[in-house]
C-alpha cells in the first residue's frame, strides 16, 4: 500500500522523525530498570513515587531583607528548597559601592557584600533542612564560604549543610558572561570547591554543570548534553589531579539542563544523558559507587523558548516544560516565569510557576509511576539516537583539543553564536514555528506593558552606606591579614576555601577577596568575535 506523502520532520539535534514507530524501532533499546546501571529510566528505583521532584524557583532581589521575605513567602506556599539569585555586581565580585556597580545593585538578584548580608537573607531558614542553591560562578568560593559560615552560626556543621553552588565557570565563558579570572585559574577554583566538599561537605554539591546556558547560547539539545559532559570531565580531571578518588569527587558534581523545544526530544535527551554519563563515569573513570554514576540534575527554565509577544502564552509553555522535565526524570525543577522576557519575576508570576509544578505533581499523576514513557517505541528509539548524537558532540570537542582549549580559543563561542544566528533567522522566516510570533500572530500590536520590577535606588544607596560603616567598625587588621593569606594561597597551590572562609569571617568583603585573587590571577580576555 502506498503511504501518502507527508512532510519530513527533523528535530533540532538533526534526528529525522518517522510518522510511525513500531516494535522494530525499539529493538535493541532495552532501557533496563530504574535505579540500576545505566539508569536510563531514572537514578532511583522508585523515583517520584518515593519523593516528587524538588521545587526550587530562582528568586532574589534588592536587599537581603527583601530577599528573605520572598524566600519565606515561597517556602510558605510549599516550595521546599531555595535558589538564590544574585545581582550582577555580586556575580562579578564587585562591592555595592564600586563605581562599576552603579545602577545594578540589587537589580537582577540580591546584593551581597559581606557575611552579614547572607546571614540576613537566610534568617530563620535552617540550612540542614532547606537545601540552598546559589547561582554564583566566578566568586563561588566566597559565597560558598559565606554559606558555611552562616551555617556555623546556626550551629549546623559544614558536613550537614545541604545545597548546591552553580560554580560552572566554563559555561560562563560561552554564555551568560559572568566571568572574572582567566580560564586556567577559574578551573582551579572549581577544583578547589570540589576537593573541599569531597573532603568536608558531603551533602553539598560543589558544582552544577550547566548545559542550560549552552542551549540558551545556541547549542542543540544533543550538544547541550555533550558539551556539558565535556565540561564536567574537565572539572573531574582537575579534581582528580589533587589525588582524590573518583567516588569522592563524582557525587559532588550535579547538572542543570534546559527544557524548551520539542517535548519528546527533551525527554529522550534526559534519558540518553543519564545512560551516557553513567557509562562515562563507570568505564572511563572506573567509579565503583553507583552514586558516582548518577546524573543528578535540576531541569527547567526554558528562557529561550519564552516570548515577549503575548506573554501569557508563556504560562502554557511553562507547564509543557515542566512536563518534559518530569517525564525526563529530573530531581529538581525550576521554571522561568511568564514575565521573565521583560523583567525579574513578579511575586505573582513566581507563585504561578510553583503552582504549575504542584499541579503536575499532585493532580496529574506525574509521580504515580517511574518513567511512564519507558518502553514507548518512539521514546526508546529516540533515546538511542540522542545518545549517538551526544557521543558525536563530545567527539567533536575532543577533536578541537578539548573543551578548555576550545573555550580559551573562542571556538565553541563562535560555533554556538553561528547556530544561534541560524535559529534566529529560522524564527524570523517562520521556518521554526512560534505561536503568537510567526504563527497566528495578532500582528501589529505593540508588546503589552507588564509590571516591571522597579529599581530601588534608595536601597542601593543604603547598601553602600552600610558597607562604609562595616569597613569602619570591623577589625582592619584581621581583614588585612586574612586577605593577604588569600593572596598567598592563590600564588601557591593550596586549596583556597579555608583562607577564604577565614577572610569572610573577618568581614572582608566580596569585592576585597575578589580583588586579592585578581591581583594574582589577572583577568580573562575575550577572544575576538
Amino acid at each position: 500500500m502506498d503511504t501518502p506523502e507527508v512532510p519530513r520532520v527533523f528535530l533540532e539535534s538533526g534526528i529525522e522523525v518517522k510518522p510511525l514507530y513500531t516494535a522494530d524501532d525499539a529493538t535493541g533499546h532495552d532501557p533496563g530498570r530504574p535505579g540500576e546501571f545505566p539508569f536510563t529510566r531514572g537514578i532511583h528505583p522508585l523515583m517520584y513515587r518515593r519523593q516528587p521532584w524538588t521545587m526550587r524557583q530562582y528568586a532574589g532581589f534588592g536587599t537581603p531583607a527583601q530577599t528573605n521575605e520572598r524566600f519565606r513567602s515561597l517556602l510558605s506556599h510549599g516550595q521546599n528548597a531555595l535558589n538564590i539569585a544574585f545581582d550582577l555586581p555580586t556575580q562579578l565580585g564587585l562591592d555595592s559601592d564600586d563605581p562599576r556597580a552603579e545602577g545594578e545593585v540589587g537589580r537582577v538578584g540580591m546584593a551581597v557584600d559581606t557575611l552579614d548580608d547572607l546571614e540576613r537573607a537566610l534568617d530563620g531558614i535552617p540550612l540542614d533542612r532547606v537545601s540552598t542553591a546559589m547561582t554564583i560562578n566566578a566568586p563561588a568560593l566566597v559565597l560558598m564560604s559565606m554559606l558555611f559560615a552562616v551555617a556555623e552560626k546556626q550551629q549546623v556543621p559544614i558536613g550537614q549543610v545541604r545545597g548546591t553552588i552553580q560554580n560552572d565557570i566554563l559555561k560562563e565563558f560561552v554564555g551568560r558572561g559572568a566571568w572574572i579570572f582567566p580560564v586556567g585559574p577559574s578551573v582551579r577554583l572549581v577544583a578547589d570547591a570540589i576537593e573541599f566538599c569531597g573532603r568536608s561537605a558531603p551533602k553539598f554539591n560543589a558544582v552544577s554543570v550547566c548545559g542550560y546556558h549552552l542551549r540558551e547560547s545556541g547549542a542543540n539539545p544533543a550538544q547541550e548534553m555533550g558539551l556539558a559532559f565535556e565540561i564536567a570531565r574537565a572539572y573531574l580531571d582537575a579534581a582528580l589531579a589533587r589525588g582524590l578518588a573518583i567516588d569522592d569527587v563524582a557525587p559532588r558534581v550535579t547538572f542543570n539542563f534546559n527544557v524548551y523545544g520539542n517535548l519528546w526530544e527533551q525527554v529522550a535527551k534526559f534519558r540518553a544523558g543519564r545512560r551516557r554519563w553513567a557509562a562515562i563515569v563507570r568505564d572511563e573513570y572506573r567509579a565503583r559507587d553507583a552514586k558516582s554514576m548518577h546524573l543528578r540534575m535540576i531541569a527547567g527554565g526554558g528562557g529561550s523558548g519564552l516570548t515577549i509577544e503575548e506573554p501569557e502564552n508563556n504560562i502554557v509553555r511553562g507547564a509543557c516544560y515542566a512536563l518534559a522535565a518530569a517525564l525526563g526524570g529530573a530531581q529538581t525543577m525550576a521554571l522561568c516565569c511568564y514575565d521573565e522576557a521583560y523583567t525579574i519575576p513578579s511575586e505573582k508570576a513566581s507563585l504561578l510557576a510553583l503552582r504549575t509544578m504542584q499541579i503536575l505533581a499532585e493532580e496529574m499523576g506525574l509521580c504515580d509511576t517511574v518513567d511512564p514513557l519507558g518502553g514507548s517505541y518512539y521514546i526508546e528509539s529516540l533515546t538511542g539516537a540522542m545518545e549517538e548524537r551526544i557521543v558525536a558532540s563530545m567527539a567533536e570537542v575532543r577533536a578541537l583539543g578539548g573543551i578548555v582549549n576550545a573555550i580559551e580559543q573562542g571556538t565553541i563561542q563562535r560555533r554556538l553564536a553561528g547556530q544561534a544566528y541560524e535559529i534566529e533567522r529560522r524564527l524570523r522566516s517562520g521556518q521554526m514555528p512560534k505561536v503568537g510570533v510567526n504563527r497566528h500572530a495578532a500582528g501589529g500590536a505593540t508588546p503589552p506593558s507588564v509590571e516591571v520590577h522597579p529599581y530601588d535606588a534608595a536601597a542601593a544607596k543604603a547598601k553602600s552606606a552600610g558597607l562604609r560603616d562595616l569597613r569602619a567598625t570591623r577589625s582592619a587588621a584581621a581583614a588585612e591579614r586574612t586577605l593577604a593569606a588569600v593572596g598567598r594561597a592563590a600564588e601557591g597551590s593550596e586549596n583556597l576555601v579555608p583562607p577564604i572562609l577565614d577572610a569572610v569571617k573577618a568581614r572582608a568583603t566580596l569585592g576585597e577577596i575578589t580583588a586579592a585573587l585578581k591581583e594574582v590571577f589577572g583577568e580573562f580576555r575575550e577572544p575576538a568575535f
Partner: protein
Amino acid sequence: MADPRPVRVLVAKPGLDGHDKGAKVVVQALRDAGMEVVYTGLHRTPAEIARAAIDEDVDVVGLSILSGAHLPICRDVVARLAGSGKPVIVGGVIPVQDEAALRECGIERVFRMGAPFEEIVEWIRRRCRASSSSPVSR
C-alpha cells in the same frame, strides 16, 4: 556616486550584563548585510565604548542591554558621544514604557527583541545616507 566605504558599526555590551547572544546575532546579521562590524565584547564601560567608537571611526553605535540598567547607561554613552555625529541605538530587554525616556536622552532608535534584521539594516543605511549628505558628517 556610491560611497566606497562600507558602513561601519560598533556593537557594544555596556555594563555588567553578560548576555551576548542577541548582540552576536545582530553582529552576524549586519556583517551578512555587508557592513563592517566591531564587537566590543562584554563588560565595557561607557567611556570605553565612546573611545572605541571614535578610534574605530564607526558610523553608528549599537548598544545591547538586558539587565534593566539601560537608562543610566544610555544616558552616559550618548553624553560621551555628543557632538561626534554618531547616532546611538539600543536593543535588548527594553520595556515599552522606557522607550520615550530613551529617545529623550538622545537614543535615536530602540529595536525591540525579535525586530526583523532587515529593519535594523535598513534603518542604519538610511541614517548613514542622511548624515553623509549633511555638512556635519565625518
